[in-house]
């Protein structure tokens, strides 16, 4: 049977951009730029993009198209004994969708909450925003040992998230492509609205100065290089099998090189642009509440679900409108990443391996991920999902599989064969430097991030200040997914007789 394709190059680009651009572009990148010296961080970040991000993305698109298969089939194509290395990122993807969907459920909850300004307006709303998130929405418990019962409102929102995800993915690229086009255009339009609103607020300029003030001396520190390379490693949604699958749907004549560069630059430009929306609001809050920048949460869930709602409460007018705009944008950006992981990282590999039909496979995956995700709607869910499990799969898993994958493609395929393939049909050619980036720079860069940012801190002292028994779950998840990857390799592939 002929493999499905994107239909239009434009659909592939929007799908790839939608996959790459997600919550981290809003709540991780701007914070890092502020923390690590503005322009200094951006220099290190662009270097990381050139030597790590773009070659790695070309590799994932390239091996998908070369072997016309999702990740497990692509690595099996390199050598049957490497198939497990294609399954490991699939398990990573599956792990991520179980809690990422719950974060999107929070966004759905806040779309509804924003419409009525459920946490209040003015100073009263600003003071209530934190309590609303941690209390009313999450019912947050005291720690990972206190799990509690699922929060019904979040379960309902989670159902909505998975129904939407199923509807986008059960027809494959035929629907994913056009949906991605509309989702990205709407999300970008909403970001423009938020940036314009943000930079016209009193105090916005101070916030932007915090975002972009440059301290070049930071380039002499290891921290800024770690931060920049880690952000590049995470921002392009690599190491999760999805981009390999997306690349496998590109036609034989389709471009790989140029599409990879467009995706990378488009993703990074969106991050940079989002920083204006974030830090203009940070500056506004500093002035409105008379607090220093250190007291305004500028990253992660604190930024999206506390600081931004505080700002929305304090706006001079149209609070509900801007609240809905912000959370719809967040939802769309996250949704495109969710269905990318679901389809590219889990459904397509299962279809390729076992020959299962798309609708049944998609339904099965969505249901199983939803059921597991219910755990993360509990009062203890924030600790277990978006924190501990995220650390296991979206930090350790992604970086380790990325490094190993690059080594195997670089040295075993080898890279020169892949380069020849991608150059054949591209608008511009990459030189032999590409081989050395894949063979040495990408693996070394990723191992630097995982050792510096992970093992060196999480082994001597448990991760996140959690009790050892809780943080040790990370290692069990890693080992467990690795074992399951070998189990999948051992299963019979359809048509292998």
């Amino acid at each position: 049977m002929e493999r499905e394709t994107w239909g239009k190059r434009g659909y592939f680009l929007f799908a790839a951009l939608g996959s790459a651009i997600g919550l981290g572009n809003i709540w991780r990148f701007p914070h890092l730029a502020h923390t690590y010296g503005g322009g200094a961080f951006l220099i290190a970040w662009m270097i990381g993009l050139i030597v790590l991000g773009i070659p790695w993305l070309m590799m994932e698109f390239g091996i998908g198209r070369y072997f016309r298969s999702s990740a497990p089939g692509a690595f099996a194509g390199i050598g049957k004994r490497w198939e497990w290395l294609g399954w490991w990122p699939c398990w990573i993807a599956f792990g991520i969708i179980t809690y990422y969907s719950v974060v999107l459920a929070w966004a759905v909850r806040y779309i509804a909450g924003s419409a009525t300004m459920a946490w209040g307006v003015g100073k009263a709303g600003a003071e209530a925003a934190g309590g609303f998130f941690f209390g009313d929405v999450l019912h947050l418990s005291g720690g990972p040992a206190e799990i509690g019962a699922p929060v019904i409102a979040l379960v309902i929102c989670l159902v909505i998230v998975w129904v939407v995800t199923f509807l986008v993915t059960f027809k494959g690229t035929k629907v994913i492509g056009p949906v991605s086009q509309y989702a990205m255009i709407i999300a970008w339009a909403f970001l423009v609205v938020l940036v314009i609103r943000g930079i016209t607020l009193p105090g916005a300029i101070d916030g932007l100065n915090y975002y972009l003030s440059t301290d070049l001396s930071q380039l002499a520190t290891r921290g800024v290089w770690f931060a920049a390379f880690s952000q590049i490693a995470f921002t392009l949604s690599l190491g999760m099998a999805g981009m390999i699958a997306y690349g496998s749907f590109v036609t034989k004549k389709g471009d790989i090189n140029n599409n990879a560069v467009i995706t990378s630059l488009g993703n990074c430009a969106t991050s940079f642009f989002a920083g204006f929306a974030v830090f203009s609001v940070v500056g506004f809050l500093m002035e409105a509440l008379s607090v220093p920048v250190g007291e305004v949460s500028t990253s992660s869930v604190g930024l999206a679900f506390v600081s931004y709602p505080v700002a929305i409460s304090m706006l001079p007018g149209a609070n509900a409108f801007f609240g809905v705009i912000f959370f719809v944008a967040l939802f769309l950006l996250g949704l495109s990443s969710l269905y990318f992981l679901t389809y590219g990282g889990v459904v397509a590999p299962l279809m390729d391996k076992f020959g299962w039909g798309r609708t049944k496979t998609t339904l099965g995956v969505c249901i199983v991920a939803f059921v597991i995700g219910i755990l993360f709607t509990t009062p203890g869910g924030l600790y277990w999902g978006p924190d501990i499990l995220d650390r296991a799969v979206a930090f350790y898993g992604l970086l380790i599989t990325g490094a190993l994958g690059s080594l195997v493609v670089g040295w075993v395929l080898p890279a020169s064969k892949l380069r020849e393939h991608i150059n054949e049909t591209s608008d511009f050619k990459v030189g032999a430097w590409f081989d050395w980036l894949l063979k040495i720079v990408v693996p070394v860069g990723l191992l630097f991030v995982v050792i510096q940012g992970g093992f060196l801190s999480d082994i001597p002292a448990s991760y996140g200040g959690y009790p050892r028994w809780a943080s040790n779950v990370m290692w069990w998840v890693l080992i467990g997914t690795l074992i399951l990857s070998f189990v999948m390799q051992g299963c019979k592939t359809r048509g292998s007789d």
Partner: protein
Amino acid sequence: MESGAIITAVIMWVVFIGGLSWCFSRWKRAGGKWED
């Protein structure tokens, strides 16, 4: 806005817009269309 922040912002936008423009011009020069 501080001059350093302005310079940083301008340089980054030149890089992004210039880079993306280069990519799309290569695409067009190679005879590519959105529908390919």
